[in-house]
């Protein structure tokens, strides 16, 4: 019997479609705007996160420096250099280190494919590629142990350099000449998002074995050491140990922050991660407030609908409707309107997210579209949203419904 009554009520609602269109539209619009807000917000922070890892994942970089404190009778202002031998020393003394690689670089004239360019050439160890999220395009590879040991003349190049020198050819196997020494291209870097850098972006560089670099470039020291700890949590410990060990070797105060330059990207990433989380929370807050305003609006519209139907409620009461029948009808209408609104809102939001993701993006850093055009539509956002909205709509539906059921039938029948 309940089912038949529900069918009757929903049939009635279908006939009153025009009257409820406004509420349905309001819920559709609210669902759409909040889901888009959250999807684009999450996409934004996700793109940030990916591009942050573009420089490298879990990376600590150590630079040469200059002392700023007196130490054991030695004056401040001494330049502290680092040398290839430090690599073996650090990896032997700090068991928390997973990967370590030297890096030295300079600008060279590079010719290849009949073209010439002046670019940064970096001498690096085999672990460098992994640490800096460099993946070779298929058919190529990064520098390996043998290259390093034999000081082979091989080069791994960024995608921009590859396009500049070999716009119409596959660069792998081709020869490029760096500082009058010929190198064989063994790999091209796959495109990646990168938000932070030093001395230009990886896309423009050429990478060669560090041992080879030392032979074409007369420099005894190295420019940078890249270190990746085994566990992220150990980043502070590893940083401190590096200062202690090199401090003992080169005689500087481990507390002297200027003796060595250390860029701890793990720490940066954690700070940035908190900022991203903050943005998401902020967006959720905006979404929540919007929802609340929406719920007030829906309650108002429901009240108006009930008022408009006062006489109809009186008629139904005269025909034998109980209080619960009246409540049931209004709740059913609320549920149907809510379902319709959230369904269409979700469907449209999903379609917009999918379509936006189809837009191709450039991997050049500056493009804002890189960050904006990758929204993420996630199920957890949708579920939280639907539950919260459901509760709000239910509350905004129950009050008018109860009020309707409390009407005095005589007065309701007299209502014009």
């Amino acid at each position, binding site marked *: *019997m309940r089912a*038949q*009554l529900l069918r*009757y009520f929903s*049939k*009635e609602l279908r*006939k*009153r479609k025009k009257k409820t269109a406004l509420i349905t539209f309001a819920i559709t619009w609210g669902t759409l705007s909040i889901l888009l807000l959250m999807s684009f917000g999450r996409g934004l922070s996700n793109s940030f996160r990916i591009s942050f890892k573009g420089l490298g994942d879990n990376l600590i970089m150590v630079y040469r420096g200059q002392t700023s404190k007196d130490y054991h009778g030695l004056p401040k202002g001494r330049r502290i250099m680092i040398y290839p031998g430090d690599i073996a020393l650090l990896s032997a003394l700090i068991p928390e280190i997973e990967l370590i690689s030297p890096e030295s670089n300079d600008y060279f004239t590079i010719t290849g494919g009949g073209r010439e360019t002046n670019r940064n050439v970096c001498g690096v160890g085999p672990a460098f590629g992994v640490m800096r999220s460099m993946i070779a395009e298929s058919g190529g590879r990064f520098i390996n142990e043998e290259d390093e040991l034999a000081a082979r003349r091989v080069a791994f190049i960024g995608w921009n350099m590859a396009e500049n020198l070999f716009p119409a050819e596959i660069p792998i196997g081709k020869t490029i000449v760096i500082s009058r020494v010929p190198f064989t291209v063994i790999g091209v870097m796959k495109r990646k998002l990168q938000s932070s850098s030093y001395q230009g972006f990886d896309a423009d560089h050429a990478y060669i074995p560090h041992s080879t670099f030392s032979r074409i470039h007369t420099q005894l020291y190295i420019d940078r050491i890249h270190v990746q700890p085994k566990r992220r949590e150990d980043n502070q410990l590893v940083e401190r140990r590096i200062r202690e060990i090199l401090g003992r070797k080169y005689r500087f105060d481990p507390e002297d922050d200027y003796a060595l330059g250390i860029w701890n990207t793990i720490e940066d990433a954690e700070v940035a991660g908190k900022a991203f989380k903050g943005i998401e929370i902020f967006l959720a807050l905006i979404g929540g407030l919007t929802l609340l305003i929406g719920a007030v609006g829906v309650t108002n519209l429901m009240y108006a609908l009930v008022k408009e139907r006062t*006489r*109809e409620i*009186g*008629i*139904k*009461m*005269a*025909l*034998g*409707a*109980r*209080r*619960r*029948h009246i409540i049931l009808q209004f709740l059913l209408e609320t549920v149907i309107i809510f379902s319709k609104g959230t369904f269409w809102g979700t469907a449209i939001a999903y379609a917009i997210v999918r379509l936006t993701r189809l837009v191709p993006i450039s991997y050049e850093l500056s493009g804002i579209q890189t960050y904006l055009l990758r929204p993420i539509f996630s199920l957890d956002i949708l579920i939280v949203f639907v539950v919260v909205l459901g509760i709000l709509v239910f509350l905004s539906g129950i009050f008018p419904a109860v009020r309707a059921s409390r009407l*005095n*039938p*005589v007065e309701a*029948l007299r209502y014009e």
Partner: protein
Amino acid sequence: MIEMENISKVYRMGEISLEALKEVSLRIEPAEFISIMGPSGSGKSTLLNIIGCLDTPTAGSYFLEEKNVAGLGFDQLSTIRNRKIGFVFQNFNLLPYATTYENIELPMLFNGRTGKKRRQRVLELLEMVGLVDWQHHRPSELSGGQQQRVAIARALANDPSLILADEPTGNLDSKTGEEIMGLFVELQKQGRTILMVTHDNNIAAYSQRTIRLLDGRVI
């Protein structure tokens, strides 16, 4: 059928209270056709509402078919209205969005009557009021007389023993009004009790007995 003893109804609006009915006592036998007459404000509608269980008296006792109605709750009164009473209004009071068929069907849904029996009963009633061809039309597409016939069919849906009509011909021309009264006479012959409020002596003439009200009292 109906036994009322010293029924009073007082409306309170802030400081002012209005006595709409003053110790009204009534006895109505089954299958009587009664008209209630009186000037505006004499308490006709209030009396009809109390008899129809839409309103409750302030004092007095009311037995409907030997059942004490005074003191029943809203839902119990709803059940009585649904099963024992059929209402016919001056302005028809049909649901504007529902078709003729759906309007007639509604009281049976509150009563939980099953699909097959319900359909059969609606068709029977459509036949009786001569609106089989109009069953899929909405009230706005029907004439006043047709709408009132839909309302009568609806009032009969659960086969009630009591029909209450508040100026059923008030919005109709006299010829249509006579047709409607013909239907009421028909209903009385079926053994139903009919109470009808009217201003019109020609309409009251269809009834067997007239109760006259003045200032909340039966005269």
